[in-house]
């Protein structure tokens, strides 16, 4: 066999994410100080988080519960025996000179989550991304450099230890992602899951969710990995996607030019939309992990595990599937409605109260979402209760009111709440479906517009709209539009 004509080598990217997620507990992981974001510097500090001699850390039981629940939601195996370790390094944001973390016996391992992308035709593309491990650790403090414009020249730094000891879980994925889009979707799904669980607010701006990306490229078909580069400093999902896409291009260009990829950490620079080298990694760091002698091991009993498992809510991937298969929604609608747990629950309550799922989805994703956006409200603050929305949808389905009347009364329902049915009755908006009444209105309209009638009959068929409008006007918008159309056409043809 002769070798084929050389074709341009195709490359694929191998991407893994390390995500730090702040747990939404009241107090720190090993001490009883507040975790409040935005407090005055060094107001949430205590001898334990400052690592003063003679103090002892004690694990916050909520941290354990949240970490285990996150592990379960990510389909992980929960370790029957887990422990904490000290990771040693010197940096002033770490008052003890070691971080309490978990090394060889993390609380959760070997899980996965499912991401769902929608292709151009609206079909769902599902992919499982492996979760290597999830472990608990403490956050470090925050450095404020004396005059950031002269960082190199400054002779000191200022430290705020409010964040030291704030509980985190670090979630490490398998290198299963192949594009910026997949990685961004993974990060979003992770955030949805922790938000559904209520274990984290997932706020990227406040640093509650921080993603570091590991990425390398290789020719398609190769089973060896290229040199791995780490990217940090992305504080939005779109930044994750853009940083990865930029980095794939940069690495492929370098490989094709015969350059060597350097193992390094790069920072995403939002202003220039590029990744820039931070520093070269010289071998792996020597953290000299050893078991934390001040903290006992963790043994989650099967009974406790069963209790926490039973407390898990239905998760976004399960909801998406159910909305598509049981409720007949499109993958797109299912994705939008399940993005936020409160909205999904509002939708479900509306359907439970008897509304058609498709109509409920349309109203919630359309007019109601628009209202929440302009008013800057969460759906929990909405005056319109799901039962009343369902009532309105049922009135439309039963032809009691038209869709247009529905849209007309919605603002008042949104602003004031109350029963849709009562409002329709109070305002006398019940749709006119009696053919007799509509025919009378049509006769009046035709009599009043002999000129237009003449033109219509001589071929100007697009005047139908004009007549429909006139009949609607005459009936205060209450005439059944479908019936009006039918009757009008009949009468117009004479």
């Amino acid at each position, binding site marked *: 066999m002769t070798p084929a004509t050389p074709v341009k080598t195709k490359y694929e990217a191998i991407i893994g994410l390390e995500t730090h997620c702040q747990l939404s507990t009241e107090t720190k992981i090993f001490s009883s100080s507040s975790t409040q974001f935005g407090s*005055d*510097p060094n107001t949430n500090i205590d001898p334990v988080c400052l690592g003063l001699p003679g103090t002892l850390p004690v694990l916050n039981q909520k*941290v354990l519960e949240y970490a285990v629940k996150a592990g379960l939601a990510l389909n992980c195996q929960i370790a029957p025996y887990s422990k904490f370790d000290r990771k040693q*390094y010197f940096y002033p944001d770490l008052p003890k000179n070691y971080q309490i973390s978990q090394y060889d016996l993390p609380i959760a391992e070997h899980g996965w989550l499912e991401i769902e992308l929608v292709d151009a035709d609206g079909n769902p593309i599902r992919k499982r991304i492996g979760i290597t491990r999830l472990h608990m650790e403490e956050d470090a403090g925050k450095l404020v450099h004396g005059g950031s414009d002269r960082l190199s020249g400054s002779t*000191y730094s*200022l430290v705020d230890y409010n964040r030291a000891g704030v509980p985190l879980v670090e979630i490490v994925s398998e290198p299963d992602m192949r594009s910026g889009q997949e990685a961004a979707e993974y990060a979003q799904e992770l955030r949805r899951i922790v938000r559904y669980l209520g274990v984290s607010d997932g706020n990227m701006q406040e640093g509650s969710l921080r993603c570091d990306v590991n990425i390398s490229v290789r020719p398609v078909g190769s089973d060896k990995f290229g040199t791995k580069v780490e990217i940090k400093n992305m504080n939005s999902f779109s930044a994750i996607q853009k940083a990865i896409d930029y980095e794939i291009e940069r690495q492929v260009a370098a490989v094709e030019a015969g350059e060597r990829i350097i193992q390094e950490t790069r920072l995403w620079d939002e202003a220039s939309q590029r990744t820039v080298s931070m*520093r070269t990694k010289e071998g792996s760091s020597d953290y000299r992990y050893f*078991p934390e002698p001040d903290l006992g091991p963790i043994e989650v009993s099967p009974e406790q595990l069963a209790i926490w498992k039973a407390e898990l809510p239905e998760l976004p991937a399960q909801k998406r599937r159910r909305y598509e298969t049981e409720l007949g929604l499109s993958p797109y609608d299912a994705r939008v409605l399940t993005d936020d747990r409160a909205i999904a629950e509002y939708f479900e309550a509306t359907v439970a109260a008897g509304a058609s799922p498709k109509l409920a989805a349309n109203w919630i994703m359309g007019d109601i979402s628009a209202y929440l956006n302009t008013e800057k409200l969460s759906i929990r603050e909405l005056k319109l209760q799901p039962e009343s929305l369902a009532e309105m949808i049922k009135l439309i389905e039963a032809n009691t009111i038209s869709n247009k009347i529905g849209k007309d009364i919605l603002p008042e329902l949104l602003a004031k709440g109350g029963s849709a049915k009562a409002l329709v009755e109070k305002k006398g908006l019940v749709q006119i479906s009696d053919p007799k009444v509509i025919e009378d209105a049509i006769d009046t309209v035709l009599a009043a517009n002999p000129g237009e009638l003449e033109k219509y009959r001589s071929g100007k068929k697009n005047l139908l709209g004009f007549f429909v409008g006139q009949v609607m006007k005459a009936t205060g918008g209450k005439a059944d539009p479908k019936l009006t159309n039918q009757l009008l056409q009949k009468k117009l043809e004479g």
Partner: protein
Amino acid sequence: MINREQVRKVAHLARLELTPEEEERFTVQLNDILEYFEQLNELDTDQVPPTARAIDVSNVTRPDQLQPYPERDLLLESAPEREETAQGEFFKVPQIISTED
């Protein structure tokens, strides 16, 4: 067995500055300690699970209840250097020359 180069590396990792005499002395001492562990190694511990602590207790946790530390000023005062800015009170640390990942 541990050599002087390794002692120097461990000292660097712990940010300790050793004189040549100390390097020599600690190499000998550390080797003595390691030798002692070699003796312990003679025991067959294949069937013994590793021990990280002397007291057999697990699952020690505390409730997630806020208890602000009442003597914050004392904590700040015990720092070698502090600085008060418009943002509030900070711990002040020497310049950071290089970072280690």
